[in-house]
């Protein structure tokens, strides 16, 4: 096994010192001289026309410096998500939003905004804005929204309230496959609206210079694409806009791929009107109701198998709730289908899916991006199939999972898989053999064990535009500067990418510093999303570091009078490898003759030597990533309280094939966090609506996310099936912890109590009702 100095090591995060000492700066902390505070007036109606809006009262309030409405802000359509910057032709991005419109389409939609000398004054001013609404009919369910009676939320060419295109993924011959299957199971599932609840709410500070240049500090996960969006909205060239994180971001989980809801454009619009810097920070309630959620909706799975257990056909359908604006609603149903179909070797497949507009909070990207919806449904059906065939669900999965080189529906190769090993190690951790032997007659609390598996992507190519650039520059003292345009939203980017550089260059990690998440100081990068940063940005960073290394060695070859191939770098010292000098030297003739005076030089000395001769080593990496599948198997042990319906997850064994783990501690952290978010998705997290379209869960207390007291034991197991396309063999891991969790929990609940729920979250009410129904049947 190859050994590395920095890659694969559990080095301490480079951002830890600032974050632990309380000096790390986030957007919500950011202040500028003369800065104003912006607050947003939001619609109380789920659908209404704004007949009249009178801002004169607000404008007169002392301390108010600007009021923005649809009347005095750009009428340029956009999409808050980065899809408008990376939709691949021939698809067209859906642009269906203005900063403010004269129609509001969900409770929380933006109506106006105020900039004032304090948050209090801005909030007072909002109360003085008089808005006359003409309420319009509203619809909240995606199936109802397609019906002829439903109101039109946006005009759509594809079908009633259907944004973008219908996604169809054909593979093999589905009709033939189903006809040839011995056993067919078809089930319908309902999945909830989940919220990211990243700890830092959406925020932006905008400054418009006297020269017209715009600077925006914000919570975006994608500064470069965000700059493109702002450029279109405000008609200002890319080159005159700077978007950056300051540099830390309090979590993301997909909620700000593109703009941070509308924090950036509202801050910029107010700053232009007030001619002063403006800070917009969403309250937690605003973050809940007016910032993208995970897509809820409906998933149907029809699985056909041969008698021997070989899966033969799978037909899937996904109808998702887009909410009031498109955001990522064209892409999410596609990922739902593509990832769902990619897990098992099934010769005949077909997927049909799309989103539907409703008068609810827009749905967008959230960790897993359609995949958790798919795998809750598929893994439930696979368990049902195992029962019907009389097979062990683990054996059934092992029999059918993808292998390297198998044909599949994805437009790139299945180039690695450690899924079988994930299943084996996860099963060992949970004690799979205990399954079915955990309860005694008369037990009120029933235990069960279930499993779920899945795959995902390591970036968005070729589904979306996806490329990376990076610079590695050797400073005149031999220390190293890396520039890459990806944020660190907490996933450790600003540590793992420098780890790559240190490894390739042969320098200590403390010699490397990194500029990130800033359009002014970094080359274009798509950003931190789609589990891509380590894999895709990492590929560019490795390429840049290799380029710099080559320049160093070429220069050192002249300096040491050896061939560059005869040199290596360790601890910032370039030295002649092998027999150093004399007849056995592998290097140049001069060296072989013993003419080289020295056998090593420090990078510090060499960089300064070069500097005095007008040269700097500057490595450039410009790449389009390949793609690679990470794999995962989760095993849940649960306890179902038959008297209350309460489900508790006791333990989750989560085995993940992440390729090479560049920083194993960071990888474990990604898995553990994803697992707990998945447990919330399975058991408790959901935003529901009342009949007036109001979000019933609009605060952390009302929205039941897991706390430290709710967490199960989590065994994060790393499996390293290195992928030939990844940097040092790495694959994505950011989203995978969530993907198979709900399916594993639902299967464990069935194993414990014999109830099969096809709708998550598995709340005590639903579980209790199912237990009652089961008793009734018995």
């Amino acid at each position, binding site marked *: 096994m190859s050994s590395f100095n920095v890659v694969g090591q559990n080095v301490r995060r480079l951002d830890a010192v600032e974050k632990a000492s309380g000096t790390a700066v986030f957007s919500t902390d950011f202040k500028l001289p003369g800065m104003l505070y912006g607050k947003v007036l939001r619609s109380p109606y789920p659908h209404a026309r704004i007949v009249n809006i009178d801002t004169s009262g607000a404008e007169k309030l002392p301390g108010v410096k600007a009021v923005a409405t649809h009347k005095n802000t750009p009428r340029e359509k956009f999409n808050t998500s980065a899809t408008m910057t990376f939709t691949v032709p021939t698809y067209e991005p859906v642009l269906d939003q203005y900063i403010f419109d004269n129609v509001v389409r969900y409770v929380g939609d933006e109506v106006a905004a105020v900039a004032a000398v304090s948050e209090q004054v801005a909030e007072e001013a909002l109360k003085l804005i008089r808005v006359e609404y003409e309420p319009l009919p509203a619809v909240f369910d995606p199936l109802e929204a397609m019906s002829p009676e439903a109101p039109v939320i946006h005009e759509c060419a594809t079908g009633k309230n259907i944004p973008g295109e219908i996604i169809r993924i054909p593979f093999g011959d589905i009709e033939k496959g189903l006809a040839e299957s011995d056993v067919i199971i078809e089930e319908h599932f309902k999945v909830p609206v989940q919220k990211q609840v990243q700890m830092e709410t959406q925020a932006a500070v905008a400054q418009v210079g006297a020269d017209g240049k715009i600077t925006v500090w914000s919570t975006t996960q994608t500064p470069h694409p965000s700059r493109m969006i702002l450029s279109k909205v405000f008609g200002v060239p890319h080159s005159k806009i700077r978007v950056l994180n300051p540099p830390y971001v309090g979590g993301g*989980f997909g909620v700000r791929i593109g703009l941070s809801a509308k924090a950036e454009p509202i801050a910029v619009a107010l700053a232009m009107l007030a001619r002063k810097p403006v800070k917009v920070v969403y*309250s937690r309630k605003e973050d809940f109701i007016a910032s993208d959620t995970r897509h809820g909706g409906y998933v149907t799975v029809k699985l056909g198998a041969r008698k021997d257990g070989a899966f033969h056909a799978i037909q899937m359908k996904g109808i998702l709730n887009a909410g009031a604006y498109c955001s990522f609603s064209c892409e999410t149903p596609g990922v739902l289908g593509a990832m769902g179909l990619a897990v098992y070797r099934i010769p005949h497949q077909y997927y049909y899916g799309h989103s539907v507009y409703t008068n609810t909070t827009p749905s967008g990207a959230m960790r897993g991006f359609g995949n958790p919806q798919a795998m809750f449904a598929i893994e439930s059906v696979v368990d049902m199939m195992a029962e019907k065939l009389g097979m062990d669900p683990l054996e059934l999965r092992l029999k059918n999972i993808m292998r390297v080189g198998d044909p599949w529906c994805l437009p790139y190769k299945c180039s690695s898989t450690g899924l079988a090993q994930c299943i084996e190690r996860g099963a060992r951790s949970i004690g799979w053999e205990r399954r079915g032997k955990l309860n005694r007659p008369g037990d009120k609390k029933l235990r069960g064990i279930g499993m779920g598996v899945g795959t995902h992507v390591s970036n968005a190519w070729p589904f979306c535009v996806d490329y990376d650039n990076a610079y590695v520059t050797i400073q005149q003292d031999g220390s190293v500067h890396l520039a890459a345009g990806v944020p660190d939203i907490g996933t450790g980017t600003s540590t793992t990418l420098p780890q790559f550089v240190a490894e390739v260059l042969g320098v200590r990690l403390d010699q490397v510093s990194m500029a990130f998440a800033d359009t002014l100081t970094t080359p274009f990068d798509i950003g931190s999303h789609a589990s891509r940063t380590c894999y895709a940005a990492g590929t560019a960073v490795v390429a840049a570091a290799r380029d710099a290394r080559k320049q160093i060695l070429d220069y050192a070859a002249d300096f040491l009078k050896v061939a560059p191939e005869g040199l290596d770098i360790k601890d910032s010292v370039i030295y002649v490898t092998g027999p150093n000098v004399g007849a056995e030297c592998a290097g140049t003739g001069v060296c072989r003759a013993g003419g080289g005076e020295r056998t090593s030089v420090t990078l510090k000395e060499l960089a300064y030597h070069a500097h005095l001769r007008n040269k700097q080593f500057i490595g450039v990496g410009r790449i389009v990533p390949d793609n690679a599948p990470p794999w995962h198997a989760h095993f849940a042990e649960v306890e179902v309280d038959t008297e209350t319906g309460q489900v508790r997850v006791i333990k989750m064994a989560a085995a993940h094939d992440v390729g090479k783990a560049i920083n194993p501690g960071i990888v474990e952290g990604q898995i*553990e966090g994803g697992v707990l978010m998945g447990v919330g998705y399975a058991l408790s997290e959901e935003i529901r609506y009342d009949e007036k379209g109001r979000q019933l869960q609009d605060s952390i207390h009302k929205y039941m996310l897991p706390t430290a007291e709710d967490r199960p034991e989590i065994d994060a197991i790393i499996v390293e099936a290195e992928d030939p396309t990844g940097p040092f063999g790495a694959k994505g891991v950011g989203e995978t912890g969530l993907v198979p969790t709900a399916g594993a929990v639902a299967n464990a609940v069935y194993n414990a109590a014999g109830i099969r729920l096809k709708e998550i979250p598995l709340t005590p009410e639903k579980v209790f009702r199912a237990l009652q129904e089961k008793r009734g049947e018995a």
Partner: protein
Amino acid sequence: MTTKLLKFTLNGEMTEVAVSPSDMLVDVIRDRLNLIGTKKGCGKGECGACTVIMNGEAVNSCLVPAMKAMGAAVETIEGIGGPEKFHPLQESFMDLGAIQCGFCTPGMIMSSKALLDKNVNPTSEEVREAIAGNICRCTGYVKIEEAVFAAAKKMRENQIGRDRNEQF
């Protein structure tokens, strides 16, 4: 609006600042005294990011009217340690991967410190209870709990060391 002079001890230093009756402690600490380590994640006492220690107790500073801190001793993340000498909790959070996005970190450390200041040998339940009001969406709390235990161990060892020194 009428302002009053709030006098309190902040991180060991006598501090005076003019506040109005509606000001909350979190805003005074962050906006007036510029200690941004104390974070604001909800403003309603639901997330724990603004946790500080007041007279030995962990409190959500977004729920404390600033004037309530009159005469009190308040500790924030900036006051417990820094690069010259980190608190054992800060050390263990850094070393054991308990920090991801970092937004919950100061509050999480302050809640943990309030616990360990009183009970340097807590059970798992006690640790979980102490940080139950601190939401972390990144870590799944696994490495945070490990870090609190590691810090407790270090603090116990330091305590033994101090006791020994006092004996001699």
